[in-house]
């Protein structure tokens, strides 16, 4: 802990060696977070870079109370939201024609899906679905908070989450059944322009 505090203090002082070490320490876990919010690895790296730059810029605001990992993770999530705010409309999603996924497959089969495959499945979602799903499932946010964060209505947030789950369920089933599934392209990409 003392080492981490020393590193943080070094970053506050603008010491590049401390910044590099802090990056090495947190980059892998933060990259995992960014991959969930991004459509691909390149986008995830962009989010990671923006997040770390923001973190180094504002690190003096960290008060050495609470988890630093939690603090930096929040910055990564905000960077991801910022990225998609500037690129996409996150509001209405309409005309989704998804077949009923039916019964969710055998849990043992699903369990055999690798983490990478599950991550790829999330990345297949449209940005609006992906972000709402991430905020609800991984960040533990309520629909009210998500709505406020994204500037959408609670109803839209609920609807997006429902649709995201349906799509994921279908994709998981397909992936579980097919040994080498070919991604069908971005699903649910019918955002209002």
């Amino acid at each position, binding site marked *: 802990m003392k080492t981490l505090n020393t590193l943080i*203090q070094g970053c506050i002082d603008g010491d590049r060696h401390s910044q590099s070490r802090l990056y090495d320490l947190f980059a892998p876990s933060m990259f995992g977070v960014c991959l969930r919010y991004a459509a691909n690895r390149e986008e995830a790296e962009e989010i990671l870079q923006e997040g770390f730059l923001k973190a*180094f810029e504002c690190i003096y605001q960290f008060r050495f109370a609470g988890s630093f990992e939690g603090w930096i993770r929040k910055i990564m999530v905000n960077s991801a939201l910022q990225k998609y705010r500037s690129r996409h409309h996150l509001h209405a999603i309409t005309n989704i024609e998804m077949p009923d996924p039916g019964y969710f497959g055998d849990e043992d089969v699903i369990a055999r899906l690798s983490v990478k495959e599950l991550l790829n499945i999330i990345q297949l979602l449209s940005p609006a679905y992906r972000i709402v799903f991430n905020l609800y499932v*991984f960040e533990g946010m309520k629909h009210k908070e998500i709505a406020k964060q994204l500037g959408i209505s609670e109803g839209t947030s609920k609807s997006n989450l429902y649709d995201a789950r*349906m799509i*994921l369920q279908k994709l998981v089933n397909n992936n579980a059944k097919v040994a080498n599934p070919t991604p069908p392209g971005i699903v649910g990409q019918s955002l209002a322009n």
Partner: protein
Amino acid sequence: MDENLHYIDRLFRDAIDDYEEIPSLKAWKTISDRLDTQRAKKGRDYNWLKTTSSFLLLILLGIEIHDVQTKMVGDKFSILEANIYKNSGPVNMGIRPNDILKKSEKNKPDKLVSSVTNEKWERDPVEQRVGVKGIMYGGFSRNGLSESANTVLTKSGPLDSGTFISLLENKNIPAIVLPEKKIANENRPGNNASSRLSMIVFFSPDFPFYCLQHDPHDISGNDIKNGEKPDLSSTTGVLLDYSLGDHWSLQPGMSYSNAIILIDPKTIYAEKDNTGSVKYRYNASSGYGYVLPSFSNSPSVGDSLYAYSATHTLRYLNIPIAMRYRVQKGKFNFFASAGISTNILLQGIIETLVQDNSNNEIEVMNHLHGLKNIYFSGLFNIGAEYRLNKNFSLMAAPVRRFALNSINKNVSVKSYPNSFGIAAGIRMRL
């Protein structure tokens, strides 16, 4: 179905939540490069001020050098002029026109031809005397020398440039050439080189008010804002006033300011400082300090002490530079000036009395975290001067000072000191 959907949540959360992957090496390189760029940009933010200050100083230096040189030329001329008045008549009466003409044929430089106008030379004896526009000194005709020159020239016909140069080179006729600019300057009131520079010594009692910016949801920020009251402050210093013309002048200078802020009593809590040791943290609008009283030298995080009313003192060395515009009405000079000031922190301290249940101790925090060493401010004033005599004037001017950037960094509250003062002083002509 709902159960299935929730299973989806759990499936993904359990599998991916702690997922880690190493990003490419390029990611850190990009971050590092951008950090370098940001650092360079921050440097540039201050560089413009350094560049502007250097530029202004160079201009001032250039003007001063030019002024000194002009003054030296003026002094030389005065000596020559005295010789003219003293020796002109008798000496020049001895010059013969033929001598001058002989010399002129040998010596015909081209470079001054354009300066010589001799078309009217024969027609008008008066114009002959001033025929060399802007070169021949106007006062020349007031004495006997002009007559002697006439005597020399009237029979020679149109004067060519070589003849004129010969006239100037003839030791019997003292040099009477002045730069055009010098003549122009002589005729301009108040432009004597020696009177351009003056010094103003001033004192200004100031009424400070601080603009504090903080997150409205930050309780500690609200406490700081409500618990601090600026006390009477003062600024004293010296300004040099360098006249750039009839109305404009440049005012660089140096001053010392002393600001006092009174802080209400409050409870302070122990927490880890940046080195990891636990001390009592005292927050103020400009920064924060740590105290460790002898009666409580090993506190635990969260322990508290009561701090009585505190005095927070900020002392700065100010380096202002301003442009002033003045209008003269009789013995009064009315002026307005605006400029910027670089403020260098000399001292930032907080003094308070801390107490627990049975002990108390005076604590002085000499090192405040978050307080910047330099900040910049703008200044504006309108005032008047009353001329006592040729060299001294009394000055009074309300002054408004306002911070251009905050005096602190890396703290939850950003503080922008502003003040309104009434400067009174005396101007001495150098």
